[in-house]
């Protein structure tokens, strides 16, 4: 266990994910270098940093939307059943990527709802078509989740009929319906009008309180401080600083972190 984990009050020792030495370059442009991440069950990790720092690439790598050039990702206990270990230094097959995607679900910055499907169909598409769960069960689950995020009455609406905040809440429900071990949020409020940010952050906060394991790429520092157990500050494809949210955001040690936090607070 890494030393930064000691400040977390209760022992939540079960590891959900371990990433080691993740590396990625697009041509000569190195976007990730030597990235290590540990996520334990129920933990919320916030990835912050300037744009182009590689935080979104990490998130996408964990969901197999980007294939790292090197490093390893381990889900659960790789020896136990249900565990998964992928070595990106070796050739990675479709099966491994599928297994990776099985374990996590992504909430996108631009929602990426399926425009040709109603809200309900968006949500049950994965459970029914991919996970082969019974349709009735998937519908009941979707309705329950929609109720939770206050969108029960939008069940039969098409995405274009919803506000950005509503679309993003559907995006979150679509991810939840897959029952993933890990939820990934890629700047979930960056595309929203300011007055709609709160409703989405509110949902994410509730999920954190419920014990969902999450990695969130965000520019909302106040929010990160509020919900995240650990904050990782990245710049130039490397981890510059990591630790408990309050420490990294309130009393950063590294110059680059200080500058970034200060600049973002000035913006607000």
């Amino acid at each position, binding site marked *: 266990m890494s030393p930064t984990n000691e400040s977390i009050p209760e022992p939540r020792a079960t590891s959900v994910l371990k990433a080691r030495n993740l590396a990625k370059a697009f041509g000569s442009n190195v976007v990730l270098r030597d990235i290590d991440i540990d996520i334990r069950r129920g933990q919320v990790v916030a990835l912050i940093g300037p744009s182009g720092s590689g935080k979104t690439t990490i998130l996408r790598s964990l969901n197999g939307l980007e294939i790292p050039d090197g490093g390893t990702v381990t889900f659960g206990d790789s020896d136990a059943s249900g565990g998964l270990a992928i070595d990106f230094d070796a050739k990675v097959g479709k099966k491994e990527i*599928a297994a990776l995607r099985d374990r996590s679900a992504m909430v996108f910055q631009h929602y*990426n709802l399926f425009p*040709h499907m109603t809200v309900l169909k968006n949500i049950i598409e994965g459970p029914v078509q991919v996970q082969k769960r019974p349709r009735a069960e998937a519908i009941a689950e979707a309705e329950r989740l929609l109720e939770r995020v206050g969108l029960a009455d939008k069940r039969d609406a098409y995405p274009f009929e919803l506000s950005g905040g509503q679309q993003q809440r559907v995006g979150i429900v679509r991810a939840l319906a897959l029952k993933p071990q890990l939820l990934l949020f890629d700047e979930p409020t960056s595309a929203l009008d300011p007055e709609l940010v709160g409703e989405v952050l509110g949902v994410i906060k509730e999920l954190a309180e419920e014990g969902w394991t999450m990695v969130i790429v965000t520019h909302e520092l106040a929010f990160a401080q509020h919900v995240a157990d650990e904050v990782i500050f990245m710049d130039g494809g490397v981890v510059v600083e990591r630790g408990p949210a309050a420490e990294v955001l309130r009393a950063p040690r590294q110059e680059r972190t200080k500058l970034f936090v200060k600049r973002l607070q000035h913006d607000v």
Partner: protein
Amino acid sequence: MNWDLIWSSFGPIITGAVTGTIPLTLASFAFGLVLALVVALLRLSPNWILSGLGRFYVSVIRGTPLLVQLFVIFFGLPSIGVRLDPWPSAIIAFSLNVGGYAAEIIRAAILSVPKGQWEAGHTIGMSRPQALVRIILPQAARVSVPPLSNTFISLVKDTSLASLILVTELFRNAQQIAAFSNEFLILYLQAALVYWVICLVLSTAQSAVEKRLDRYVAH
């Protein structure tokens, strides 16, 4: 004005449309679309041999006259022992032709769907083929209806070329009555009128299809 001739000619002309032009169009378009999807996917393949194959096909089809393609199949192939009847020859030629043109339309339509839609499909666990069928193609369909309707309407008129390889269809019937009665202007105008009516009906159908596919888009 020879009204009797006009009235009595509509019968064979419309029969030619119903038993020739329309089934020939429908069959060729259906086969052509399937072929076009395959060619479009070849062209989109990351494998350069496959994409080159798709590109070559489109280039040949678009770079040679439809009439020549038709003649190669019907009059040319018998030289190498492949003897096809007029109908199968026509359906094959028109399908191959539609396949070439519609492939480009379908390819462009697939490319017009934002990359995020593929990713959203992947994040809910879909494989590429699954995402293509469930997520991408339904959205591509909406984009491709207007240009595909163009292809379809062109095809209706292009089937008149089949008269040259002895397929009994609208135009061939008109030609025969014209030759027999010597009323070329009247008969050819009648043929033109029937083609026009068919295309008008198709344009209306196109609007209906577009409207249906647009139901999930903000207006």
